[in-house]
């Protein structure tokens, strides 16, 4: 463990030569942020087409891409898509089903996350799935893995090719506040290692933590849910948020907490224009 600290601390010093983070989250508009964020990565990795950023580290490292492509020959998330489809088609005890909540079918990724002005909160797809269940007298599913992840895999698969398009509605102060809170979350240092999300995945993206190459933050939200070999199963975006926070030795927030929903809102907005390609496989 001691080695890790040294390695990461070294990286930290080197990585902070450039600082893009706005000091005050409210200083710039979402549209300006999107432009700044996207161009930061397209300039840093000039050979990588915008859509390729949906593939995480595999967009920038050929050696790991080779392994990934071999795994994509028969990706480990496939059985979960099938399970998700079965779940989607299995009626609730009251005879209704998910298609009664999602009237236009399972291809829903393009609609989430979004701001709900009435409820004054960011609504995510997992949240909507569990609210659908509860409205129909079913117990909510666990947020991080299991059946919910499988449902998301099916819905994600059906949504492949849809483009990320998170809108921060103009003139809605609540939406902007949620967005800015997510943005602050992304750029705020936390944990014993004192890292922000951006420390690793913006300033230090493309650099090594031991042998791992830090993936670019652009496109980070497109491929979910993800089968991580490290997990040996499928997990959700908020599971990974929690894992990242733990790795910098910070106390993670709860999945679907306001903090992570707002972070998802900001971060997904940063990937506007990039296609959803989940579910996907990572190391």
């Amino acid at each position: 463990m001691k080695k890790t600290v040294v390695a990461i601390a070294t990286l930290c010093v080197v990585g902070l030569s450039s600082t893009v983070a706005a000091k005050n989250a409210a200083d710039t508009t979402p549209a300006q942020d999107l432009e700044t964020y996207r161009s930061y990565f397209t300039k840093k990795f000039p050979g990588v087409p915008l859509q390729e950023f949906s593939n995480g580290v595999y967009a920038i490292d050929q050696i790991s891409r080779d392994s990934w492509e071999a795994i994509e020959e028969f990706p480990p998330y496939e059985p979960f898509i099938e399970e998700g489809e079965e779940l989607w088609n299995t009626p609730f005890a009251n005879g209704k089903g998910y298609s009664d909540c999602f009237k236009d079918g399972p291809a829903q990724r393009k609609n989430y996350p979004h701001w709900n002005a009435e409820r004054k909160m960011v609504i995510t797809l997992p949240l909507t799935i569990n609210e659908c269940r509860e409205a129909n007298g079913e117990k909510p599913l666990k947020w991080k893995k299991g059946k919910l992840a499988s449902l998301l895999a099916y819905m994600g698969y059906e949504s492949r090719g849809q483009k990320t398009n998170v809108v921060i509605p103009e003139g809605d102060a609540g939406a902007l506040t949620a967005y800015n809170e997510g943005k602050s979350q992304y750029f705020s240092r936390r944990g014993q290692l004192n890292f922000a999300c951006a420390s690793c995945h913006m300033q230090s993206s493309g650099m090594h933590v031991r042998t791992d190459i830090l993936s670019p933050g652009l496109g980070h939200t497109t491929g979910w849910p993800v089968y991580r070999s490290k997990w040996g199963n499928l997990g959700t975006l908020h599971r990974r948020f929690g894992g990242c926070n733990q790795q910098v030795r910070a106390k993670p927030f709860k999945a679907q907490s306001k903090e992570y929903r707002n972070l998802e809102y900001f971060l997904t907005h940063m990937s506007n224009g990039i296609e959803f390609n989940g579910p996907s496989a990572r190391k």
Partner: protein
Amino acid sequence: MAKSSIKLRAKVKNGVTTVKALMSHPMETGQRKNKKTGEKIPEHFIQEVVGTYNGKVVITTSWSGGVSKDPYLSFSFKGGANGETVTVSWSDNKGGSDTKDVKIKGKK
């Protein structure tokens, strides 16, 4: 997990059928410890995978727990035609087993 523990594809191209199989299985080596209890997790892995084409064995695979969780197997054989059947069956060290058929797709 889905109904069958095996996902299977078989495609014929230029006279060669390529079969790809993904099995859902923990593939425990017996070396791993349960993080909570500290006890070793007993070995539990697929020992044998048999691939047949039209009822004839084309490959018999023996594995140790050194094959990854949710194991993958790909093999190919000469012959095969659209609509013919390829079967993949596995059996593990605890007596578990599963089998799955798939129709070959593609043109010779």
